[in-house]
């Protein structure tokens, strides 16, 4: 396992993801930011990474990680992060 490398990929993908998800949240409702952060936003992050940083994939390939393994890890982490945040958001909105 290379946790620092996984963390780097996670941050890079989510940089694009968060910008996208928050922008949509501002326009519609922050409810959508949580939904997008662990769904369509990851796809946006993935596409942006492929556009701007695709050569860096060779770092991960050499460490034994394929694109599909990396994206599954990001999706899992995003889900684990956004689920409790979403619950907190709902609680705040209701009170």
């Amino acid at each position, binding site marked *: 396992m290379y946790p620092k490398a996984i963390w*780097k990929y996670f941050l890079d993908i989510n940089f694009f993801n968060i910008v996208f998800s928050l922008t949509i949240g501002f326009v519609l409702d922050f409810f959508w930011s949580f939904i997008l952060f662990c769904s369509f936003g990851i796809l946006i992050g993935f596409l942006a990474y492929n556009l701007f940083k695709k050569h860096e994939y*060779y770092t991960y*390939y*050499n460490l*034994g990680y394929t694109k599909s393994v990396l994206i599954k890890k990001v999706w899992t982490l995003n889900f684990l992060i956004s689920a409790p945040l979403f619950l907190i958001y709902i609680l705040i909105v209701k009170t």
Partner: protein
Amino acid sequence: MDVLEVDQLSKLYRNKVILNNIKLRCSTGEIIGVFGRNGSGKSTLLKILFGTLKANTITLKINSKVTLQKEIISSKNIGYLPQHSFLPKELKVREVISLFFENGDKQDVIFYAPRVSSFESRKISALSLGELRYLELLLIGHLNHSFLLLDEPFSMIEPLYKEIIANLLMQLKKDKGIIITDHYYEDVLKITDRNFLIKNGNKIEINETNDLVKNGYLTSL
């Protein structure tokens, strides 16, 4: 000793044969040089062996065990140095070293390698081409792969780093099998044990430097 065996490797691109039924064997402890004119399929060959480009046909075995192309990366048996730089440019050298090696002892091997102390605090984007190529090779070379595929490690590198890279490869060769392709044929020939040329999709053994002339890769020596 680990052995990489490739058989029946063929690659077509828009109905043009790039690689035609290539057979190849590489053992740990040897360096194999691959020559060929631009567009002859050298980089294609390495990408196929690393599993990032699909072959039309291939049988790949590592220590007699058949390995599918899609399993190559996750098997961690083969490392690959691509032509272009691949390290995150915004990070410092010491941060990149810790991405590749969690273990402090392994990190020290890189930190104490020749000349690394002179650039360890700089960002990747601030390295010279020679420093960058050397660092990439140090990082990939010290992972636990049995085989290394190197695409143009000597290209555009200043003489000082060429020598350092050649020494590093000779050191890595003790534990790994290395396949190297580069147009800087003199640098390659100094360190290789065997060589071949790819011409019209076919593999031609190169037994002496003059064979590169005979087969049209060089006009003269």
